[in-house]
């Protein structure tokens, strides 16, 4: 029952989608254009190792995040855990932390010469090298650290699903003779599984795209290999080939996630709301509190404490190294402003551009609108490093004058963010009933004005939430910034990564602390409107 779309809208949406899909096409073209020798060198040389490393990291992290996410969701939503309201917020906040910030924290603590070793040497009298320290430079370290910051992708939708399971379904199961555990296993769990699995696929995509964390932990995966190929070779086709393989790995996850979110069953009911009966933990409450507190400490508390403490120390008692690294108010502020500037511009452009294809798909659904939307979503399959790579290649080939400009950086960031904008804004636009716009039209208001005066204001809260979410993503983005930044124009993530690469990890503390303070503060207001962020996560973050 779709009306025909007005031509200007169709044009705008198509242009956006074509621009969005260009990086993907270009990477594939470059990969296919590479000579056979490069292909076979990579195929027999690096690829088996990379596949194995990536696969183990993927499985381990998803499994770990599932345990944490589902466990946390159950404790907060279905048990009488004390201070549930507080935990509900704290357990979701690690979303604000990029993996590499957690990695930096734990490297600062546990590497040779780090805080823990120095403490034992100075205060307890051990000799250097005597204390056993956990080695983080392997798959266990990477799994743990990435798992700690990605479990909210599973926790949030699972908690939302647990909240919205129709209570009479569980009561009906009890009336049919099943006890509490049986009800959970046969009724509640199958009903929330789609949400948990959807979150797990998002964690998988995160793992595939991650660059900063694995680079710091020196764990070889596709992203670090792409970076090395890129910075090493004169001919960048090796990087393009590896990129294509990584995209192929990501595609099943991407399609799976889309399939699961469409399959979400309608679980809410509109009967009288009754307070849910919670499982009494009794004596188990103390271990539960301990576990939840430990999780929060490891994922959120330690990074804030360690990085904050070191930043304070650097600010109050600056050493020479600090001055060189620009760790003073002026330096950090400058990088902070850079980050804010790029993130604001990119988030605004992405939010605005996404409206075109979305409005087309929501109001004038057709084959064309679906194609336009899918193309616009395509960068989601591209990890940040590949987007950066694609833009560098494109710019060098077609617009060398633009290389090293802020314009290129913002441009690349915008298309990195576009798929996320599309996902999170879709529900905001769908919430505007067509009858509102139709009423305005019958009152004689022309279509463009209707969009401006009716559609946008009604959808504004959702669009704002979406803007904040992509802004946070832009603030955390690392690989694209590394590849495309103008000389001297460092963002906070770049400073963190640079310090870690030079093994002066403590110098990474101030920018890291500033970054996570900003992102956490931005995430907090979204937490109040829990429904908004839950849906945003469910519509893939």
């Amino acid at each position, binding site marked *: 029952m779709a009306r025909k779309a007005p031509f200007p809208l169709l044009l705008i949406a198509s242009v956006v989608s074509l621009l969005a899909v260009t990086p993907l096409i270009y990477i594939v073209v470059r990969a296919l254009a590479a000579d056979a020798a490069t292909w076979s060198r990579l195929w027999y040389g690096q690829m088996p190792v990379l596949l194995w490393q990536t696969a183990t990291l993927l499985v381990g992290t998803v499994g770990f995040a599932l345990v944490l996410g589902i466990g946390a969701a159950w404790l907060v939503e279905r048990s009488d855990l004390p201070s549930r309201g507080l935990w509900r917020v704290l357990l979701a906040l690690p979303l604000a932390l990029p993996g590499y910030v957690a990695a930096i924290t734990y490297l600062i603590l546990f590497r040779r010469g780090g805080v823990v070793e120095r403490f034992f040497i100075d205060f307890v009298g051990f000799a250097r090298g005597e204390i056993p320290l956990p080695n983080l430079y392997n798959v266990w370290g990477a799994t743990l650290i990435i798992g700690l910051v990605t479990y909210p992708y599973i926790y949030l939708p699972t908690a939302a699903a647990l909240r919205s399971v*129709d209570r*009479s*379904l569980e*009561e*009906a*199961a*009890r*009336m*049919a*003779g*099943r*006890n509490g555990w049986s009800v959970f296993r*046969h*009724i509640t769990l*199958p*009903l929330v599984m789609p949400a948990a699995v959807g979150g797990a696929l998002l964690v998988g995509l995160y793992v595939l795209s991650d660059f900063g964390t694995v680079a710091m932990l020196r764990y070889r995966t596709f992203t670090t290999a792409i970076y090395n190929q890129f910075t090493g070779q004169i001919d960048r086709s090796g990087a393009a080939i590896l990129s294509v393989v990584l995209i192929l790995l990501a595609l099943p996850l991407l399609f799976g996630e889309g399939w699961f979110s469409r399959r979400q*069953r*309608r*679980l809410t*009911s509109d*009967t009288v709301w009754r307070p849910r009966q919670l499982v009494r933990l009794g004596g188990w409450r103390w271990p539960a509190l301990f576990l939840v507190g430990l999780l929060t400490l490891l994922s959120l508390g330690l990074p804030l404490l360690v990085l904050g403490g070191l930043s304070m120390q650097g600010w109050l008692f600056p050493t020479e190294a600090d001055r060189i690294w620009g760790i003073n108010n002026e330096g950090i502020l400058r990088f902070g402003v850079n980050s804010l500037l790029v993130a604001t511009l990119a988030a605004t452009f992405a939010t605005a551009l996404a409206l075109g294809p979305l409005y087309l798909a929501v109001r004038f659904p057709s084959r064309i609108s679906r194609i336009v939307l899918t193309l616009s979503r395509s960068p989601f399959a591209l990890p940040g490093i590949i987007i950066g790579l694609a833009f560098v290649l494109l710019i060098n080939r077609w617009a060398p004058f633009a290389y090293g400009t802020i314009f290129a950086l913002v441009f690349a960031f915008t298309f990195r963010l576009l798929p996320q904008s599309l996902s999170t804004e879709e529900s905001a636009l769908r919430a505007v009933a067509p009858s509102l716009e139709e009423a305005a039209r019958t009152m004689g208001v022309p279509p463009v004005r209707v969009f401006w005066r009716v559609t946008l204001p009604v959808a504004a809260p959702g669009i704002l939430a979406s803007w904040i979410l992509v802004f946070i993503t832009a603030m955390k983005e690392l690989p694209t910034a590394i590849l495309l930044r103008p000389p001297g124009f460092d963002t906070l993530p770049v400073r963190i990564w640079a310090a870690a690469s030079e093994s002066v990890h403590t110098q990474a503390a101030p920018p890291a602390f500033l970054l996570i303070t900003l992102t956490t503060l931005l995430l907090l207001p979204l937490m109040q409107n829990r429904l908004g962020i839950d849906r945003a996560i469910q519509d893939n973050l």
Partner: protein
Amino acid sequence: MNNALISVQNVVKRFGDVGAAVAGVSFDVPRGAIVALLGPSGCGKTTTLRLIAGLETPNAGVIWLEGRKVAGEGAWVPPEARRVGMVFQDGALFPHLTVAQNIAFPLARRNGRARVEELLDLVGMAGYGERYPHQLSGGQQQRVALARALAPEPAVVLLDEPFSRLDAALRVSLREDVRAIVKRTNATTIFVTHDQEEALSIADIVVVMFDGRVAQIGSPHEIYTRPATRQVATFVGEANLLPGLAEGAVADCVLGRVILATPQRGPVEIMIRPEAFELRAVRSGIARIERIRYFGHDQALHVRLHSGEPLLVRSLPRPDLRVGQEVDLFVRGVVVGYSTNG
């Protein structure tokens, strides 16, 4: 302990600090009966049902099921151990299971298939076993919900406003079917409704509730023709109320002398059902017809007495009664009077 199948004794249930949702309710349900809990929204009928099911715990009072104390005085039997089947307002069919799997859910592993087929036949849904709930209409979902509740052959079946989500025509046919089905299985049934037509037409016993208390228990006929209070009278049907003076078995009012159901003395309010009048068209009478609502099979006449009181009268369609017609009114049979002393 009497030989009723279900016995609710002085049960109280409070939620938070607001007044009690159920404030001392008592009634007994004999084996095999269909009982309606009837009352307006918020009267506590659903809470009472949920207390019997075990989905809520009483603050005071005792509940007996099949000769066993299941709640109150220290006893507690959880819902899954009570052998009670329940049909919820929205069906509550498990969306991730087929119709057959839903019905088989309460059954032990073995005799599953045959029993499921038997139940599908019973509720008129044969052949729908492999469908999913979202593929069924509202009425079909309620039938499956009933089959699932009956699957383990419970002694008691509880229904919580099971027809309120259906459209009017479907409601009437489905409730007749449900009545036939539970009678066939000899299950003792309690259903909650705010629709007095539903309660009167299906139930053997009606329990009328207001504000967490039982106002009257009786057969549909008793409730309708001998409502215990004014509130029951006006809730269960249309009621005309006229002031009068009672003197033993009779009372005087503007319509003349009427016979009281219960002898009393003093000022009373007399309740007369619209169909209890006889109308005669006359030249000059005690009332005039102001408005006629014609329904084809009968009609409702809005009549005003010359002394000012309005009355609602029901009659078969009659050509001699027209708007503006002067009429005389006579009361057939016996009326109920409510004392208005003090």
